């Protein structure tokens, strides 16, 4: 039987989704179900003087209007800073546009919207704090006066590296803005809660049903056994559906109070202000280097805009610090950060969560060094790469990189792009005023995958960093795998079946994967941090191995042989040396449930495995972007995008390509189009998809992708994870390319997103208006 790991099989998930049979939360209709909608703050920062729901409550079909005062049992949302809890419904104060201040419940979603429009909220405005500059100014208005500062948390750098920077032959500095982005999964967030006498059931568009159950249990003080959480088909998440939202507890408590199931589904306009945003960092970077382009010292100070409450944003710059040196050997690295309060939507994980910010930073620095020294950007990278024999490598913060061969991916990339040819074309186009300018940008990146181990995850408020799988061999020889991770589009049902198929020597269609239901699946952690294959996949492999061991014992009994003499090959168990005297899976599985034929063996084949990784893994790669820049308008076109990824062993090349393409698309989108910005009064300027520019097929290039393979020693699968690599790789490849296109004009720096206006202005400034 050919190996399924490494095979580009099409997804088992697809026929259902393609025929409109997806089970997204909003598709759920329960008898008696009510609709809930939030009244959201229209002020960025204000005291709430009064809320009048009388007119709303009088609408026929509206069951009630509730404020925090009406729901004393409503728990606040814990945050990373004790004492600065986020109320599930604002009490006296609102801190961002979109914060829920009241909730209405009605017979249908139209009536709920009518009621929301008729709730009158009387605000007493406070000075807004829409950006970091305002937040950190002397005498700034404080979001939490009791905290005494708008700085939630601060980790100062261990020293200033001033001596090392001063000793370097050359030094340069950069201020980089990694702008605020909206994850914008196509399916907004939603829940259905049904709390009856048998307990609470919640269907949620989330990345981990188990995490949601744990939180609900803690916040509502209800035992686990009384709560069932189901993550049905989930329409994308990109990290933001791992965040905690007020809907969870509000819908649950209102369902208990009203005795009926309640659905709460965001509109897109709500989603863009209520779902956590990502990135939102300013980085002050200083680098010391020599004339050969060798980087000698790096100092990084990250200022994280955490938004209105200190949620997961407080941990993001920690990951940025960890990865600040990228794939380079830099003798001195110091990093520090501040996480700062602003009156904006809270910030949390978005595809890459702190690592794209680090990769952007160091790759911009490398190109700056190239520009300053005149050493080619490829050569600067090679002169500073950690060599392939440097692993495990311990970074400046004591974090270990598992394995890597950065030049291998770069070599493959160079084979794919014809670098000399591109440089010749670039030179020719500079001389031809009829053609757009051309630029070539590189990104050799490293990030984190297979997120665990538990010591790290516990620090982030999770139960652990392990993962689980249960393998049940049914009496007909088919297999049901229950996995602790829960997908939001990745394709777990296919990838995990591939891993199990190899171990069990079974065809793919005999293996079914179930996930995302806490009543059906043993405790699990969830899908984030590119961990599903590297951690969840290894749990599947281990559970499959144990199932095979048990089946081998059953077969040995039936074949009257010792288990160690029984082999499994091509779906048949046989005594080594006598392949004709064998038993098929169907027979072994069936007999496993017939104690009359099992002797002393315990009946059944059902085993659970928990896998705790020893380390995080480090996926890496080398990407190149070629851009055209319109001389008249500044419009950037991605002409080529070439990427080589190294995520260790690839389970399914088709799906691996899909992950890279999707991630790169989000990275290009960040580089060129997307930004959540706020007015001076703290009003969001992009609250619909007409203003927040998620790119379409027309803006995206054709991707040229390949993989090289440096297996991780962390897990026997050798897989590192890949989900966040594309988004980590792409922004700086694009930005470096645009700066490269304009470098002959003297342009050294551009801030994302590279809108035509920004690029045009940079060209005008550099040339005094004579491009």
């Amino acid at each position, binding site marked *: 039987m050919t190996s399924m790991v490494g095979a580009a099989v099409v997804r088992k998930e697809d026929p259902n989704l393609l025929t409109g049979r997806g089970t997204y939360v909003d598709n759920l209709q329960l008898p008696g179900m009510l609709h809930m909608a939030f009244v959201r703050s229209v002020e960025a920062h204000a005291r709430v003087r009064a809320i009048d729901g009388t007119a709303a409550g009088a609408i026929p079909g509206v069951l009630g209007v509730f404020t925090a005062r009406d729901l004393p049992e409503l728990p606040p949302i814990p945050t990373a800073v004790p004492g600065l809890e986020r109320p599930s419904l604002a009490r006296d104060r609102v801190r961002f546009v979109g914060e829920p201040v009241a909730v209405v419940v009605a017979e249908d979603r139209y009536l709920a919207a009518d009621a929301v429009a008729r709730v009158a909220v009387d605000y007493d405005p406070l000075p807004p704090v829409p950006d970091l500059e305002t937040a950190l100014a002397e005498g700034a208005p404080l979001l939490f006066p009791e905290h005494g500062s708008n700085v939630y948390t601060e980790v100062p750098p261990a020293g200033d590296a001033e001596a090392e920077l001063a000793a370097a032959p050359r030094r340069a500095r950069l201020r980089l803005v990694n702008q605020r982005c909206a994850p914008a999964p*196509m399916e907004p967030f939603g829940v259905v809660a049904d709390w009856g006498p048998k307990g609470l059931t919640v269907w949620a568009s989330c990345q981990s049903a188990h995490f949601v159950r744990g939180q609900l249990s803690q916040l509502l003080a209800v035992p686990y056994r009384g709560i069932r959480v189901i993550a049905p088909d989930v329409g994308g998440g990109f990290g933001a559906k791992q965040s905690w939202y007020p809907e969870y507890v509000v819908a649950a408590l209102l369902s208990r109070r009203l005795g009926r199931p309640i659905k709460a589904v965001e509109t897109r306009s709500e989603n863009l202000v209520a779902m956590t945003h990502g990135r939102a960092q300013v980085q002050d970077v200083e680098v010391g280097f020599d004339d050969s382009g060798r980087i000698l010292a790096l100092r990084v100070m990250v200022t994280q805009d955490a938004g209105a409450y200190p949620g997961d944003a407080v941990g993001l710059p920690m990951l940025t610090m960890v990865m600040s040196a990228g794939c380079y050997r830099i003798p001195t690295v110091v990093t520090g950060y501040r996480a700062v309060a602003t009156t904006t939507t809270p910030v949390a994980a978005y595809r890459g969560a702190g690592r794209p910010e680090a990769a952007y930073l160091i790759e911009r620095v490398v190109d700056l060094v190239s520009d300053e020294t005149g050493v080619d950007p490829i050569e600067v990278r090679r002169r500073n790469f950690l060599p392939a024999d440097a692993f495990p490598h311990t970074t400046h913060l004591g974090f270990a990189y598992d394995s890597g061969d950065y030049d291998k991916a770069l070599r493959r990339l160079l084979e794919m792009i014809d670098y000399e040819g591109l440089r010749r074309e670039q030179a020719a186009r500079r001389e031809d005023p009829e053609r757009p300018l051309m630029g070539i940008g590189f990104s050799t990146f490293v990030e984190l995958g297979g997120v665990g181990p538990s010591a790290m995850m516990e620090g982030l408020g999770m139960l652990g960093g392990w993962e689980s799988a249960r393998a049940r061999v049914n009496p007909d020889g088919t297999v049901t795998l229950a996995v602790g991770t829960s997908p939001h589009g990745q394709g777990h049902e296919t990838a995990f079946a591939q891993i199990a198929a190899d171990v069990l020597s079974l065809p793919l269609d005999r293996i079914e994967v179930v996930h995302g239901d806490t009543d059906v699946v043993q405790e699990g952690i969830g899908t984030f941090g590119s961990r599903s294959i590297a951690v969840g996949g290894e749990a599947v492999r281990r559970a499959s191995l144990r199932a095979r061991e048990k089946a081998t014992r059953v077969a040995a009994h039936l074949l009257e042989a010792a288990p160690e003499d029984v082999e499994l090959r091509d779906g048949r168990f046989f005594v080594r040396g006598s392949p004709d005297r064998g038993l098929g899976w169907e027979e072994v599985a069936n007999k496993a449930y017939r104690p009359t034929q099992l002797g002393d063996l315990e009946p059944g084949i059902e085993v659970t495995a928990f896998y705790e990784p020893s380390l995080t893994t480090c996926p890496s790669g080398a990407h190149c972007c070629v851009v055209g820049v319109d001389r008249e308008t500044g419009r950037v076109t991605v002409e080529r995008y070439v990427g080589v990824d190294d995520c260790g062993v690839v389970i399914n090349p088709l799906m691996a390509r899909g992950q890279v393409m999707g991630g790169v698309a989000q990275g290009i989108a960040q580089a060129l189009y997307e930004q959540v910005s706020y007015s001076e009064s703290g009003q969001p300027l992009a609250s619909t*998809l007409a203003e927040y520019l998620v790119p*379409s*097929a027309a803006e995206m290039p054709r991707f040229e992708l390949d993989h090289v393979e440096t297996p991780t020693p962390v897990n026997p699968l050798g897989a590192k994870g890949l989900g966040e690599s594309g988004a980590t790789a792409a922004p700086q490849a694009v930005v470096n390319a645009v700066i490269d296109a304009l470098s002959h004009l003297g342009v050294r720096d551009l801030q994302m997103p590279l809108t035509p206006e920004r690029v045009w202005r940079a060209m005008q400034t550099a040339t005094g208006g004579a491009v």
Partner: protein
Amino acid sequence: MKIALTVNGRHQELEVEPRLLLVHLLRERLGLTGTNVGCDTTSCGACTVLLDGQSVKSCTVLAVQADGAEVTTIEGLSGPGGGLHPLQAAFQRHHALQCGYCTPGMVMAAVSLLAEHPHPTEEEVRRGLEGNLCRCTGYQGIVDAVLEVARSGGGVEP
């Protein structure tokens, strides 16, 4: 108001509020939840269906505007028990979907595109699907699936 329309070949007569959107008629009154809602500004195309053979975004069509019309949703694309439509099969082959939320709308938009332009170039496919957003795939699989069906020249009748 009373309206009559044909949905996926079945005649329907319903009493609806004048403000009811077509997408909610389909999803909540007729139980056709394959058509998803991804935005409220006609930007994302997740709710795309065919109205008298033309693709429309059903979140900005009132149910009453569909009075007398013929509507085809993703559920009506392949006959009962008829397996996958060629575009659906090509989407699977080219890994043109991940989370699947934009997929029904994307498939319906592609059906409409190929009905109007049976032999599009890659550029025409990309432009033709501009009104449908996908956040997962980077679009390459979608574009390749549509081009493959166009090349094979068959089976794009809605």
